[in-house]
């Protein structure tokens, strides 16, 4: 009897939450997209919410499309495609051991998939993003590197190398800009990324040359008794 009561409470809670999410989506789309797009996006968002996917990116994409004057059917197609990527990203993030990922991480995973990364690579990027690194940020940086023309395998290696070398999240965020600067100097995106990967092996700015990331053992100094 107690189990039935608990289940009923959970179902009621989920229904109420779904209803609130639907109202929220409707309120945010009101007057910003056409009624046709609004109805379609509400349906896609409700389905996404039922699967535990973040709804905000879908709403944002619909608003973006409408603001840019994109025809309604293309907006709906883009929102539907994004919902699909969010689902794939959710699976990839869970594969990395994150059982209840935050919406931001799933959205970052969808960005990375859109940029050409495979689900396996998304899993690897999440797995390597140990604190202080935020998986959402790691995924977005990787996606931007790929958008700049850095091959996904190389972008993955570069990001992994930076994190394992103890570089900060700010250093990671600066990577796309550095690749772009390299390209402006005449290098290909792959060459620019390779140069950054080599530099990532060294000490970060402000550290002594023999600096090692926290948790790693310093090599023995032969001059010390």
């Amino acid at each position, binding site marked *: 009897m107690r189990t039935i009561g608990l289940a009923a409470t959970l179902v009621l809670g989920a229904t109420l939450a779904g209803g609130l999410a639907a109202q*929220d989506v409707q309120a*945010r789309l009101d007057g910003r997209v056409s009624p046709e797009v609004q109805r379609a996006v509400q349906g896609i968002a409700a389905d996404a919410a039922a699967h535990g996917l973040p709804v*905000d990116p879908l*709403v*944002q*994409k619909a*608003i*973006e*499309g409408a*603001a*840019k*004057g*994109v025809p309604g059917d*293309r*907006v709906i197609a*883009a929102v539907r*495609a*994004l919902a699909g990527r969010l689902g794939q990203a959710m699976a990839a993030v869970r594969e990395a051991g994150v059982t209840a990922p935050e919406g*931001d991480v799933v*959205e*970052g995973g969808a*960005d990375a998939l*859109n*940029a050409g990364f495979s689900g396996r690579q998304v899993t690897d990027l999440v797995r390597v993003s140990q604190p202080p690194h*935020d998986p*959402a*940020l790691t995924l*977005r*940086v990787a*996606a*931007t590197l790929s*958008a*700049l023309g850095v091959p996904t395998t190389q972008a993955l290696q570069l990001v992994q190398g930076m994190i394992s070398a103890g570089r900060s*999240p*700010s250093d990671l*965020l*600066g990577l*796309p*800009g550095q*690749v*772009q600067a390299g390209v402006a100097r005449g290098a290909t995106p792959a060459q620019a990324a390779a140069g950054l990967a080599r530099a990532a092996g060294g000490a970060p700015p402000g550290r002594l040359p023999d600096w090692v990331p926290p948790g790693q053992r310093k090599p023995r100094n032969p001059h010390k008794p």
Partner: protein
Amino acid sequence: MTTGYHPLVKRLLDGELSLAELPPELRAEGEEALHLVGVADRTPVALSPALEERVMAAVRHHAASRDPVSPGNRAWRWLNTPRDVELRLRVRPWTVWAGALAAAAALALLLGRPAPQPMPGPQARGSTRDSVLVRFVLYAPGAHRVAVAGTFNQWDRGAAPLVPAGRSGVWTTTLALPVGQHQYAFVVDGARWVVDPGAPAVDDGFGRRNSVVAVTAHGAQL
């Protein structure tokens, strides 16, 4: 003239060391310092009673001028002066326990409340809440209106207009953006969407491109 004594000589003057304990090379300096201290006039100075009376009168006058005893001041002083107050209560023990339990329950409710959910609206595409001022610049000669729209302002074409810098064709604006990565584009004359030529761009899902800005705690990086 000696401008500064060695620290050991200063300790000698403070009585922490004796002359014999100083190193030989410092003894001459120590003797000189002791000599100077010795010749100082150590006769006690006695102040005349008249001077003391004048000083105290001046102090009283100063205090009175700073604190005129108006009725308001008097009332405030009466309210503010600490007094011993004895409060006697006759209570039944169960009322004390009931009050304590009610206070504990209120505290538990307060601490157990879930954290407020973020409001729907523009969100940082990173994770931290710090904001950084980011300057957007576009060279658009001949444009009548330029704005920047992106994930940080719900793609609102009117939310962040750029201002022309004279007649140079350069348009600028500065926005406070949360740390993280944001997508955006410029809107020229309310209709033409233009990517930032100085920033990386990603596919927007509609067959166009969005510019990307990475905002770190140290500033924006394109």
